[in-house]
C-alpha cells in the first residue's frame, strides 16, 4: 500500500478539542505528521487590547477552560509586575491554594480523557467523579466551578470561606484513597504498560529545542519546574517535589503519564500545607488604573510554561498582550513524537501530551 495522508479530526472522538492531525501512514506505521490548528482561534490578543486590565481576567479564564485559574493568575502576575504592586501575603497563599486545586482538577480531566482514548472507559467516570469534588471546592472558594473569574490584579476576589480547611482536608483524604484505586486501574494493568511504554519517545535535547515544557519535559529527565526555578507567590515556603522521571530512558508516553499522575499527589500536599500556613491579613491590594511599562510573567501551568508578556503605554488598557501557551509549543513537537510509531499509538501519544485547544488557539 502506498503512503497516504489520513486526517484524524477535526471531528473525532479522540481529539479532545477541535484540531486536526494529518498523519502520513505507510501500512500501519507513521512516516510524517502535520497538525493543523486554529479552529478555535478567538482573537484573544486583539480583544484584550480593547478591554481594561481588570476586565481581561474574564477572558483569560476562558483561554484554557479546563484549568482557568492558572491562566488568569498568570495574567494578573504579569500585570502586577508591570504596575509594580505587591500582593499581600494572605492573597498569595489563597492564590496558591486555588492554583493547586485547579491543577488537580485539570489533571483529573486529562486522566478522564486519557483512559477512554486507550479503551479504558471506566477511567472516564471515575476521574470525573473525583473532579466533581474539586470543582465543589472551587465553587466554595469562588462561586463558580469553571471560569471562576477569581484572581484580581493585586490579590484575589474574596477571602476564604469559613471552615475551608476542614472541607479541603475531607476532600483530600477521600481523594488519596481513590488515588490508590487509580494506581491499580492504570499502573498495574499490563495492557496499559504495553500501550504506553516506549511509545512516542522524544529525547531530552529535542524536547528542549522544540520548546516543550511542563510535565512533558520532566518526563524526559529535565528537572525544570517553574514553581521552583522562578518562584512566584509563596512557592518557596511550600515543600513539594517537582516530579521528574528518574528512570533510564524517559520521554515516552508512560513517563509523561507518570509525571502528571504523581503531580496529583504533590498538589494535595501543597494544599494541605498552604491551608495550615495561611496568615491573616488583607488579601487584595489596590491596583492602579493606568499603567505603563512591560510586564512579563511565566508560571507553571498544568500543561507547561504559561507566559504573559504585557506592554502598557499609560492607558487603562494594555497595548499588547502576548500569550505563550505550552500546548502550542508541544504541538510543534508532536511530529517528532509520532514518527515511527504505529497508527494506533497516535491516541496514546497525543493523549499523554494533554492537549487543550483553548490555550493553543487563543
Amino acid at each position, binding site marked *: 500500500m502506498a503512503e497516504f495522508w489520513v486526517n484524524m479530526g477535526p471531528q473525532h472522538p479522540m481529539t479532545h478539542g477541535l484540531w486536526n492531525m494529518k498523519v502520513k501512514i505507510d501500512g500501519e506505521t507513521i512516516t510524517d505528521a502535520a497538525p493543523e490548528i486554529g479552529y478555535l482561534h478567538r482573537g484573544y490578543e486583539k480583544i484584550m487590547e480593547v478591554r481594561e486590565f481588570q476586565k481581561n481576567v474574564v477572558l483569560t479564564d476562558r483561554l484554557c477552560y479546563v484549568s482557568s485559574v492558572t491562566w488568569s493568575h498568570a495574567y494578573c502576575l504579569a500585570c502586577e509586575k508591570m504596575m509594580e504592586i505587591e500582593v499581600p501575603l494572605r492573597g498569595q497563599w489563597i492564590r496558591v491554594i486555588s492554583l493547586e486545586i485547579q491543577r488537580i482538577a485539570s489533571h483529573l480531566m486529562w486522566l478522564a480523557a486519557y483512559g*477512554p482514548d486507550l*479503551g*479504558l*472507559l*471506566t477511567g472516564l*467516570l471515575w476521574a470525573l467523579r473525583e473532579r466533581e469534588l474539586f470543582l465543589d471546592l472551587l465553587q466554595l472558594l469562588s462561586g463558580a466551578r469553571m471560569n471562576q473569574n477569581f484572581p484580581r490584579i493585586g490579590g484575589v476576589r474574596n477571602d476564604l470561606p469559613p471552615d475551608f480547611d476542614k472541607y479541603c482536608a475531607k476532600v483530600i483524604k477521600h481523594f488519596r484513597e481513590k488515588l490508590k484505586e487509580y494506581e491499580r486501574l492504570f499502573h498495574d494493568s499490563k*495492557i496499559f504498560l504495553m*500501550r504506553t511504554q516506549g511509545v512516542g519517545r522524544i529525547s531530552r535535547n529535542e524536547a528542549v529545542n522544540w520548546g516543550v515544557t511542563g510535565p512533558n519535559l520532566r518526563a524526559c529527565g529535565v528537572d525544570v519546574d517553574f514553581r521552583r526555578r522562578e518562584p512566584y507567590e509563596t512557592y518557596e515556603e511550600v515543600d513539594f517535589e517537582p516530579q521528574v522521571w528518574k528512570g533510564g530512558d524517559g520521554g515516552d508516553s508512560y513517563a509523561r503519564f507518570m509525571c502528571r499522575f504523581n503531580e496529583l499527589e504533590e498538589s494535595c500536599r501543597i494544599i494541605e500545607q498552604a491551608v495550615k500556613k495561611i496568615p491573616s491579613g488583607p488579601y487584595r491590594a489596590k491596583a492602579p488604573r493606568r499603567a505603563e511599562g512591560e510586564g512579563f510573567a511565566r508560571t507553571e501551568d498544568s500543561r507547561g510554561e504559561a507566559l504573559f508578556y504585557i506592554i502598557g503605554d499609560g492607558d487603562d488598557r494594555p497595548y499588547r498582550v502576548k500569550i505563550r501557551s505550552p500546548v502550542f509549543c508541544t504541538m510543534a513537537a508532536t511530529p517528532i513524537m509520532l514518527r515511527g510509531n504505529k*497508527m494506533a499509538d497516535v*491516541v496514546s501519544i497525543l493523549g499523554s501530551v494533554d492537549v487543550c485547544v483553548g490555550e493553543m488557539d487563543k
Partner: protein
Amino acid sequence: MSGALVSPDLFTLCKVLLTGIMKIQSDAILAGAPVGSPVEPLRGIAYFLMEDWFLTFNAWMIAITIMVTWAAAIQLLTMMWIERKFYSRLQDRYGIMISIWSLPFWPFSWWAKRRNKPTHRGLGYLQNVADGVKLLQKENITPANADSAMFHTAPVLIASSTVMIFAALPFSEGFVIANMPMSLLFILAAFSIAPLGILIAGWASNNKYSLIGGMRAAAQLMAYEIPLLLAVVALLMYAGSLNVLEIVRKQETLLAMVGPIPIPAWNVFSIPQFIGFTVFLVAIMAEMERIPFDIPEAEAELVEGWLTEYSGMRFGLVFGFKWLRALAGSALVVILYLGGWSGPVFVTLTPSVGPTVIPIPIIPHEVWFLLKVYLLFLLFVWVSWSVPRVRIDQILNIGWKRLIPLALLAILLAAYFAALGPALGGIR
C-alpha cells in the same frame, strides 16, 4: 442431573402440542358440521388439519420461531441489559433505569401513580427495546461511492450467519432444533462466517477509516480462529464426538467427591483441558470483539472502525449482533468446558417398577444453562470494562505467538492422557 424442561426434543414437543390443538379444532369443526348439513364441505378442513405433513411443517416452523425468538430477541435483550447494568455499576453509576413505569400513557402511568412508584427507578430492561426502535426510525444513509450491493450485503451476512448458529446450538438436551452428528463443526463454521462480512463491510464503505478497521478486523479474527479450533481439537480427544449433546453428556458423570459435594466431570477440571479452556476463553473474547480486543471498532481512533458508515437499523443489526455472538460464544464455552446444562440433582423419584432413577427437574436444565452462560458473560463484561485496549500488532502477537503454542501443548497433553490414561488408572 436434573431433568430438562423441554424434552425429549423441541420439535417433538411442538408437534405434540400442535397435534393436540389441531385435534381440538378438528373435532370442533366435525361436531359443528355434521353430515348432511349445508356446511358439509367444511369437514374437508377438519381432515386437512390433521394431516401429517401439515402438522410436521407447522411444528418445524413453530420450533424455529421459538428458538429464534428465544435467542435473538429475549436472550439478546437480556445480554444487553446485563452488560449495561453491570458496567455502569462498575463505573459507580446506576445504569439504565427507565422501566415500564416510565411509559407515559395509560395504564402504566395510572398504575405508577397508584402505587407511588417513581418513574426512573426501574430495572431498565425495556431501554434496549427503546434503543432498537430509535434505530429503526433513523435514516439509512448509503455513502456516495460505496459498493452498494456489497455494502448492503455485509450486515445481512453477519446477522444471518449469527442466527444460523442457533439452529444447532442447544440450550438443553431437548431445546435444540437440529441435532446433527457434527453440530460442533457447524457451530464453529457459522461463527466464522462473520469475519467475511466484516471485511466486506470495511471494504465497501469507501472510507479510509473503515478500510483500516476492516483490515484490522480480518487480521485479528483470522489470527484467533486458529487457537480456537486447536483448543477444540484438544477437547475432541476426550469427547470423541463432534455432537454437542454427546460432549455434554460425557461431562455429566461424577469425577470425585469433595466432602459432601460431588464434582462432575466437567472438562475444565482436567489438566490439558484447563490449558485449552484458557486458550479458548481468550480466543473467544477476541472473536467477540470485546475490549481488550476491540481495535477494529476502536472508538477513540477510528470512530467506529468498519461500521462507521452504517446508520439506522443496519447499524442496529450489526451492533446488536455483537451481543448475539457474545451469547453464542459464552454458550460454546459453557457447553464445551463448563458442563453445559448439567446441574446437581436435588430430588429424585424412584419408580417402583423400572431400573432407573428419574430426576425431578426442580431447577431444569435450561435454567442451569442460562445461569452459567450469564455468569460467564458477566466475567467477560468485567474484564472488558476494566482494561484498556490492546494495540493491533500486540493482539496479533498474542494470537500467533502465545496462544497457538499453548493450544498445541494442550493437544499434546490431551493425546497423551487419552491414550495412556486408562492404562495409568484413569487419570484425566
